[in-house]
């Protein structure tokens, strides 16, 4: 066996005198303890009450108690001239319970048979929040915000405050830790209400390197300033914005600073008020943006891709040379090139150069030769002409064959042939002939 949980009292119910609706018997002394769940009041409504009437309900009566306190003692009926009848008014218990006691004497009138009473009860939610402050000086139920719930209530705090462990009172909360999300919202304690005096709060926005933080103050900005001859001075109340490697900036006055671009991924905000004066506070939204790198520029005889309106942290660009050109960096040829925009706003590699390729010396031709037709130093698009030593040799398929230095750094003929030509010997065609003129 194990213990069953305490049964929750019903939210509503009914109660009737003995033998109702038949006349109740004499010498009755009955009691009903009614209850509804904690956090509710109990409301009792009579649907019918017909009890022998007497002065002060001395003989037969229904008495309603809240603990020991009598809330009412009833007898008679609706139309009787004597007795105390509740009428149509319900009875509201101060708490979640009521006790009914019904008693009858030993005689009943012969002509009129009284039937007793019938009543319904129900749970009525208590609005704890509207209850007056206790007189014991313990303070209000909730120090800042009270939220009524069915059967109970909740305390809550304004922005900038945290609920204490007593679940009732609030404490200033402005050590917000580090804000490392890419965007967020910050505000002074209690904003838009004035915070308590002598506030010293620190907010640190620290996002990933490669991003910069922008602060966007809302229009509702108020930090007490002191008017001096030099103008407003943030003498006693201020919000100081500190960015590494920059002069700290103290803000005060009634005009919102609007947008502040910090160009840093770390920003510290220090809000200070003293014991005097009034500052209603401030609020801001912060956002982050990727660090921007300078435009990569152009590469002669090459192409930088992709072409963007701006180049930001983690953007990659690559460079490809035009056909016939090769990528060179630091005097060395490289197969491919890409560079990334770093968190410091610099490209991690400088752009390479595109140099024209060359095919090297064309292969010499045995029993023939090669001559340059156009171009420079065997460079791209140079054209050479192969020929054979005629009339003793001839090129297969033609007298001369031209080869062009192509983008793949090979000499190629018009027919896309890479192999250099061959000189074939000419047979049976002497340059001198036997001639006989005599007949």
């Amino acid at each position: 066996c194990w213990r069953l949980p305490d049964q929750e009292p019903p939210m509503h119910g009914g109660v009737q005198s003995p033998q109702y609706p038949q006349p109740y018997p004499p010498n009755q002394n009955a009691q009903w303890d009614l209850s509804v769940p904690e956090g509710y009041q109990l409301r009792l409504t009579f649907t019918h009450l017909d009890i022998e009437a007497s002065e002060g309900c001395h003989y037969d009566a229904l008495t309603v108690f809240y603990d020991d306190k009598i809330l009412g003692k009833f007898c008679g009926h609706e139309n009787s001239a004597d007795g105390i009848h509740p009428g149509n008014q319900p009875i509201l218990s101060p708490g979640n319970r009521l006790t009914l006691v019904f008693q009858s004497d030993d005689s009943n009138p012969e002509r009129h048979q009284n039937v007793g009473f019938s009543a319904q009860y129900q749970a009525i939610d208590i609005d704890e929040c509207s209850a007056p402050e206790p007189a014991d000086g313990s303070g209000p139920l909730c120090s800042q915000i009270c939220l009524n719930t069915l059967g109970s209530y909740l305390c809550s705090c304004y922005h900038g405050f945290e609920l204490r462990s007593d679940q009732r009172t609030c404490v200033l909360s402005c050590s917000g830790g580090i804000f490392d999300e890419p965007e967020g919202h910050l505000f002074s304690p209690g904003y838009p209400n004035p915070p308590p005096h002598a506030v010293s709060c620190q907010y640190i926005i620290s996002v990933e390197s490669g991003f910069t933080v922008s602060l966007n103050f809302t229009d509702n900005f108020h930090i007490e300033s002191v008017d001096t001859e030099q103008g407003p001075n943030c003498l006693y109340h201020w919000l100081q914005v500190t960015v590494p490697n920059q002069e700290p900036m103290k803000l005060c006055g009634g005009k919102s600073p609007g947008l502040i671009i910090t160009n840093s991924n770390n920003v510290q905000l220090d809000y200070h008020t003293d014991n005097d004066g009034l500052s209603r506070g401030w609020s801001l939204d912060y956002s982050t943006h990727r660090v921007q790198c300078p435009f990569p520029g152009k590469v002669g005889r090459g192409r930088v891709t992709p072409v963007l309106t701006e180049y930001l942290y983690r953007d990659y660009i690559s460079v490809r040379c035009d056909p016939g050109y090769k990528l060179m960096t630091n005097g060395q040829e490289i197969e491919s090139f890409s560079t990334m925009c770093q968190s410091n706003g610099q490209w991690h590699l400088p752009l390479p150069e595109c140099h024209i390729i060359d095919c090297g010396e064309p292969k010499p031709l045995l029993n023939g030769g090669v001559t340059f037709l156009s171009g420079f130093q065997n460079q791209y698009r140079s054209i050479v002409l192969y020929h054979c030593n005629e009339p003793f040799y001839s090129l297969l398929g033609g007298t001369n064959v031209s080869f062009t230095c192509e983008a793949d750094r090979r000499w190629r003929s018009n027919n896309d042939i890479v192999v250099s030509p061959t000189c074939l010997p000419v047979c049976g065609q002497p340059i001198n002939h036997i001639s006989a003129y005599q007949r």
Partner: protein
Amino acid sequence: IIGGSEAPNHTIPWQVLLSVDGHRAGGMVIADRWIMTAAHVLKESGNTVPNDALRVYMGLTNVNTLRQSPVYTASIHIHPEYDNPNQVNFNNDIALIKLREPITFRASVMPVCLPEKGATYVTGMMGLVSGFGLTESNNNRILTNKLKYVQLPVVEQETCRASITSAKKKRSSVPRLTSNMFCAGVPEGGKDSCQGDSGGPFTLTDDGRVWAAGIVSWGVDCGQQGTYGVYTRVTHYLDWINKTMQEN
């Protein structure tokens, strides 16, 4: 060459002079590393002459000048079916000499074309035979130091066979005429190739292009009436020539 003329420079640039153990023979350039000649020039008594006994000259028409610039041989390839131990069987009388270094062709040295497959030898068609061999008849043996040539017609095969048959009646051990041979010459005699011309070219010309139709092989006497020179029929050996050159 009997009854011929001296060849002017550069007219027969494929002519090769072979010196085999002191004997003189002919040959012809067919590629930058290959000389074609007769097998009997390089194989005597069943033995192939050693490389160092063979000298190859080319490029000029005067033997005295020629001999100053020999070309070195790398290997000798005699037709595998040439078998002539007694000098009476000149069937398959063909051989190739591979040179150690390739020749650069010029006006004085040029290859002669090989015949087209299926090339024919038309009776009466004039050919040209050349060499540094004997220039007079057998009774008056004179060797020339100048390249000589003579133009001879192709002789009908049966006519040639008849002349050889006739010679057999007077002599013993006359070689047999086979289909791998053809004859050239004039019946009246006086023009012929002769000893020392063996291995040299008998060429025909088509469309201005000279091709090697025959190789000087053998004959009964030289330049005599009723006798003809016998030449190896090169068209029958194109496959062997190509195969030998490709494999070597």
